[in-house]
């Protein structure tokens, strides 16, 4: 142990490996976790209620298949599952028409709209962090005021205060025309949304699309805002049992975030990242350290022979070899974790801007890649850092047993 130069290489290897592990964990937690979180906040909720028909045709934003009698539904949801906040959401598509002073079309652009409660409480705006996304103008304060993505605002040469007309279709398939005032613009940092998004108060959308007492979906968010899959699945199962309405495609069905297609996969993945990384790392590092250990182990057979001559036993030497390795593992793990956390912290605070690469992405992935340090990040390096050094030493130390005592001793004589 006193031989610093001999311990240095393994310490560096462990440090690097642990650093990479820690960083990878923070990175994946950050990127996938954020994407998961944004998806939950933006469109899926922790649990989601919609009609079966709506769920089946989700990509068409089929508001003709929306839930009706939503007020009653929300009331019973609040009664049955008070641990959630229940909110109404309506997604819609349409054209945004910018009239000139004479009322003729000056500019037109496709929009994706999202209706949510902006005026009655701050909950939804806070959940989605909308106020932080504001670029120009101000937040809507009364009915008829909307927010649009800043990119769309620029494209349509709009300014806060301008009037726009939404052209869409009502719940009953008729043409819907509704006038709004642009209150401000938002930059989401998610390309999919920045291209042409419009945020409207849920009440305005209901008016515009003739959807009084209807909504595309009702989302439930845990009040502590932490997704608990077990609980969500239990809620879902319970709800679907209560509202079992075979064959009725307009009956409400509930789904949990984790069972939601692509999101379901990334949810499972995010949940198991730590396990995956640890496994890969233990495997790779053990091999590297075994090789490093072999080199130093071979160089040390002379020393082992000497120690045996002086009266140490093979098993004692083997144990001390493993003890040293564990110590190296601990030192490497500590420095590696510190370095890994530092790099992760930088990437958590500053992020890496990937806007140009994300231009055509259709995923809910932020333009800025950010790491996220979770409690697991602090400890993830520990297991592989120490286990791999010990395995590495154990493998290279087997040579002590394989060799005859006299042969080890022979290393001394030349």
């Amino acid at each position, binding site marked *: 142990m006193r031989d610093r130069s001999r311990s240095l290489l393994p310490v560096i290897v462990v440090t690097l490996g642990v650093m990479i592990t820690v960083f990878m964990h923070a990175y994946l937690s950050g990127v996938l976790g954020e994407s998961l979180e944004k998806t939950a906040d933006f469109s899926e909720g922790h649990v989601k209620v919609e009609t079966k028909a709506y769920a089946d045709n989700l990509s068409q934003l089929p508001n003709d298949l929306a839930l009706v009698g939503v007020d009653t539904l929300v009331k019973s949801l609040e009664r049955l599952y008070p641990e959630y906040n229940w909110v109404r959401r309506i997604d819609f598509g349409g054209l945004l028409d910018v009239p000139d002073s004479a009322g003729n079309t000056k500019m037109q652009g496709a929009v994706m709209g999202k209706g949510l409660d902006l005026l009655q409480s701050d909950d939804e705006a806070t959940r989605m962090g909308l106020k932080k996304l504001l670029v120009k103008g101000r937040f809507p304060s009364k009915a008829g005021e909307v927010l649009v993505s800043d990119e769309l605002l620029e494209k349509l040469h709009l300014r806060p205060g301008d009037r726009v007309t939404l052209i869409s279709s009502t719940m009953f398939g008729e043409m819907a025309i509704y006038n709004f005032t642009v209150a401000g613009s938002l930059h989401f940092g998610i390309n999919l949304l920045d291209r042409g998004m419009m945020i409207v108060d849920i009440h305005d959308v209901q008016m515009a699309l003739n959807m009084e007492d209807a909504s595309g979906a009702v989302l439930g968010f845990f009040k502590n805002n932490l997704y608990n899959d077990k609980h969500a699945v239990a809620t879902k199962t319970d709800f679907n049992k209560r509202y079992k309405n075979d064959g009725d495609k307009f009956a409400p069905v509930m789904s949990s975030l984790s069972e939601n297609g692509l999101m379901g996969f990334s949810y499972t993945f995010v949940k198991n990242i730590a396990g995956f990384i640890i496994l890969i790392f233990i495997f790779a590092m053990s091999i590297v350290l075994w090789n490093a250990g072999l080199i130093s182990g071979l160089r040390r057979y*002379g020393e082992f022979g000497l120690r045996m001559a*002086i*009266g140490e036993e093979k098993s004692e030497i083997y144990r001390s070899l493993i003890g040293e390795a564990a110590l190296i593992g601990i030192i490497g793990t500590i420095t590696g974790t510190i370095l890994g956390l530092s790099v992760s912290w930088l990437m958590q605070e500053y992020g890496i801007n990937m806007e140009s690469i994300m231009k055509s992405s259709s995923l809910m992935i932020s333009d800025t890649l950010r790491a996220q340090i979770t409690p697991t990040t602090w400890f993830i390096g520990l297991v592989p850092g120490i286990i791999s050094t010990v395995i590495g030493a154990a493998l290279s130390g087997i040579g002590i047993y394989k060799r005859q005592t006299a042969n080890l001793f022979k290393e001394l004589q030349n």
Partner: protein
Amino acid sequence: MLTKIMAQNSIVEVKGLVKRFPMGSSGFFTALKGIDLTVSEGEFMGLVGPSGSGKTTFLNIIGTLDKPSEGRVDVLEKDVGSLTSKQAAQLRKEEMGFIFQSFNLLPVYTVFENVEFPLLLLNKSAGERKKRVMETLEWLGLTSKVDSRPAQLSGGECQRVAIARAMVKRPKLVLADEPTANLDAENSHNILRTMLKLNEGLKTCFIFATHDEKVISYLQRIVHLEDGRIAKDMKVRSSGTL
């Protein structure tokens, strides 16, 4: 009665020792071909012979680092052939010192720490370790080098540290394999005089394996090995006559 006294004084008793090494896929190479030898307390003796005659092999068996294929070897009243590796390690730790051709000091440790090492294995207290190490270094004229590291020492000094390491626990038996092979004439004589002094002062038994004439000139007893057999066994002088 006479044999009993002899037996009590003997440190090494070898009868019909044969050592075979496996060679190739099925064959054997016989390095020692039937050896009988008794070494008594306080002897200063050497195994002498040409390269390949079996000196090191023999010394390793006496040192419990290897086992006999046939015959019986008793060292300090223990049957080497039947010792477990733990018992053998114990015996080496408590009763034996080794000196090698290459000095084999641990490079990162100071002179003091190198010499202290065997006492650590014996769980001696810090105070006792310090006392013994300093005393031993004094015998060997190394007190000024206590804090030096091996790289800062000459070859002769390194070998003296190695001798100190072998002697610090006051073993009954010191085994030295070609201890002068890496030393010049002056240092060789220096070392040998030191070892002889320790032999005479502490009654430590020394067994050398060597073909160095300088070493041979100090020995009290010379056992000539040739092709795995004892060719001659000569008492050349009595203790204290050099």
